[in-house]
């Protein structure tokens, strides 16, 4: 056993047992962050806060929500919205935060792609980030089932049918997932469990892993510059704060994180109170009806691009394309063959690849919502093919990139 002495203060007492001073150093005051970064580096903090808001609002919704096919819709739309004091607040926060989480995830992802933050040494940051994206997607989908409106039901029907894997006709698998021939009570109950327990648990674990993955390679910076963190942090601690290329996480970087967060919260609360309808699809305000499919059915906006990759093809090819779209981002660190860790603007053909990929994903997102008729069908097919071709071309256009 370690040697314990009579404590001189509460802090000392705790310090002997929990090493709180050391923890504070490792987590905050001597966690070194490059100075050469911009506000896009605060997206992680915003996501952490959004996830916290989702958990808190979720806890309050959970106290009145009833996972039962007969009462789920009423418990959400009447009990929570009309009866429970401030029930509407939790629901709006929950709905808006889930939608905005995906907006910030996409910004976070494209920031990483632009600045090359997935390159050698940082692969695990990228991989854990993409695993978070996948678990958040599952979390969002399972949550969307819970109000048991028309969109819940039909999204549940369509997405679980994907697991029949086209001509392989794995209908037994689909029924196993649903626990029924169609989405019903068993389905609602198990997605409720996934949404409030298993997936949040997985997300929390992955968030820890994602943070841990940052420690050894350190945070990237705006120029992809290799920084000697030991020398620079010594400079800082010796008093040359201005000359050092790094800063403390707390309070130096945190003050900026919090500034960006506070500005973001203005936008967030504006959405919660005055512009929440985009996150509360009107079609889902009709109770689930297994005998009537709504005239227009589409997923939430953040799934539209992958939905559109599924849609223009015949069933088997569509499923292959969809599967391709789900895993391809995960492989980015290995598909990008260039060793350069610099912003896309300084990287030959990749510069065009980046902006075209972003533009095309926005096009896919829009086309995924528009009715698949006439011109929109054609554009959808072109965009989906372009997406696939661009990813297949990535190793070739990055292979011969000049050293930056």
């Amino acid at each position, binding site marked *: 056993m370690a040697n314990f002495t009579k404590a001189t203060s509460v802090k000392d007492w705790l310090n002997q047992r929990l090493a709180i001073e050391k923890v504070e150093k490792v987590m905050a005051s001597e966690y070194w962050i490059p100075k050469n970064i911009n*506000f896009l580096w605060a997206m992680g903090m915003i996501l952490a806060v959004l996830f916290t808001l989702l958990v808190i609002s979720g806890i309050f919704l959970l106290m009145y929500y009833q996972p039962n096919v007969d009462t789920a819709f009423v418990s959400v*739309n*009447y009990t929570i919205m009309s009866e429970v004091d401030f029930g509407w607040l939790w629901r709006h926060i929950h709905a808006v935060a889930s939608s905005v989480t995906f907006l910030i995830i996409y910004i976070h992802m494209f920031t990483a792609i632009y600045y090359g933050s997935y390159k050698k040494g940082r692969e695990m940051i990228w991989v854990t980030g993409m695993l978070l994206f996948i678990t958040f997607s599952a979390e969002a989908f399972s949550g969307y089932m819970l109000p048991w409106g028309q969109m819940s039901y039909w999204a549940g029907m369509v997405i679980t049918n994907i697991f029949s894997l086209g001509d392989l006709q794995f209908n037994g698998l689909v029924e196993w997932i649903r626990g029924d021939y169609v989405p019903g009570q068993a389905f609602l109950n198990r997605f409720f469990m996934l949404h409030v327990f298993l997936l949040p648990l997985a997300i929390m674990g992955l968030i820890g892993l994602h943070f841990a993955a940052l420690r050894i390679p350190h945070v990237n910076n705006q120029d992809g510059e290799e920084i000697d963190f030991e020398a620079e942090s010594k400079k800082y601690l010796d008093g040359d704060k*201005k000359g050092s290329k790094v800063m403390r996480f707390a309070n130096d970087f945190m003050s900026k994180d919090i500034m960006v967060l506070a500005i973001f*919260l203005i936008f967030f*609360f504006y959405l919660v*109170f*005055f512009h929440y309808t985009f996150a509360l699809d009107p079609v889902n*305000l009709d109770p689930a009806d297994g005998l009537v499919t709504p005239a227009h059915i589409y997923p939430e906006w953040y799934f539209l691009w992958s939905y559109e990759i599924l849609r223009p093809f015949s069933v088997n090819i569509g499923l292959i394309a969809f599967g391709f779209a789900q895993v391809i981002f995960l492989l980015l660190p290995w598909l990008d063959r260039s060793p350069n860790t610099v912003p896309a603007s300084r990287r030959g053909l990749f510069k065009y690849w980046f902006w075209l990929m972003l533009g095309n994903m926005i096009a896919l997102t*829009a086309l995924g919502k528009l009715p698949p008729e006439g011109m929109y069908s054609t554009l959808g097919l072109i965009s989906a093919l372009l997406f696939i071709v661009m990813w297949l071309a990535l190793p070739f256009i990055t292979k011969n990139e000049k050293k930056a």
Partner: protein
Amino acid sequence: MKELKILAVVIFFTLVTYWLVEPYAHGVMHKQVDSKQFAYSDLDEATKGVMSKKGDATRGKDLVVNGGCTGCHSITVADIPATMDAVTAASSYGVNPPDLSNSGVVYDAKFLAALIKNPAQALKVEHKFTPESGKMHPMVPFYGMGGDIDQEVADMIAYFQSIAVSQDELTPEMAYENACARCHSMKYLNWTELGPKPSFKTEIESLTYDLKVLEYQDSLKAYMGKLPPDLSMQALARGETRARNFIEDPQSYLEGTAMPRVGVNAQSAEKIITYMFDSADPKREQRDTIGTYVIYFSILLAILAILWKKEVWRDLK
């Protein structure tokens, strides 16, 4: 400033995505119908005669009582009771005929004139009652009592207007009850198609009432083709504009729908919409008030956060 440029790029792509996915896509998906401001100008021709006459309420009363209206309709304020209860009436006519006490204030006068003379035309349900179908609209047109029919109709409308409450006294609930409640339920505000469900002491009384509602719904289903939807969430599920389009002219939005044009005037329509929002979004005022405070608070917080960051970074740059 470089960071502001980056912010501008982020905002630009976010707004483009938002615009494409929300306003643009929804504009493509949903038909846009312009409101005609409840003018009912398609009825101008048919009601020209009536609208040019000045009605006399006293004569109107005689016409209403002797002309056959009260054979089916009750007029509670004039102590004229219904000849049968709602469930029986619905089994004969498909739907319970409305009480006429407030018809003069809820409905547009021109619509009433057209309705009295030719119900199927005024209600825009002629597609359901074609000569080939052999079906007749359950409301019998008024063929006149021997005098000038236009004058007679004008008298009847004058009578309805004289017994109705004023527009100021007409509450959203009364407007809703008159125009919507005999076909639609609104469960979140306790409405069945037979009116607000009373609280019963015993389960058997409660179930007996529910059974009557089911019987009534069966008649409605047979008459309308399907059960008209519950209106509890429709204000949000369809939105204010579509709700107004539907109230003004269901056919303009959904061609061939069994829902008749209800013929309310513009003020009553707004009251009905208010009532629908009372059910679907009852906390809207609280939300707006608290929202304003929260936004002010967030702005204050952001200002302090910016100042703090500047202080901390003074040593770093």
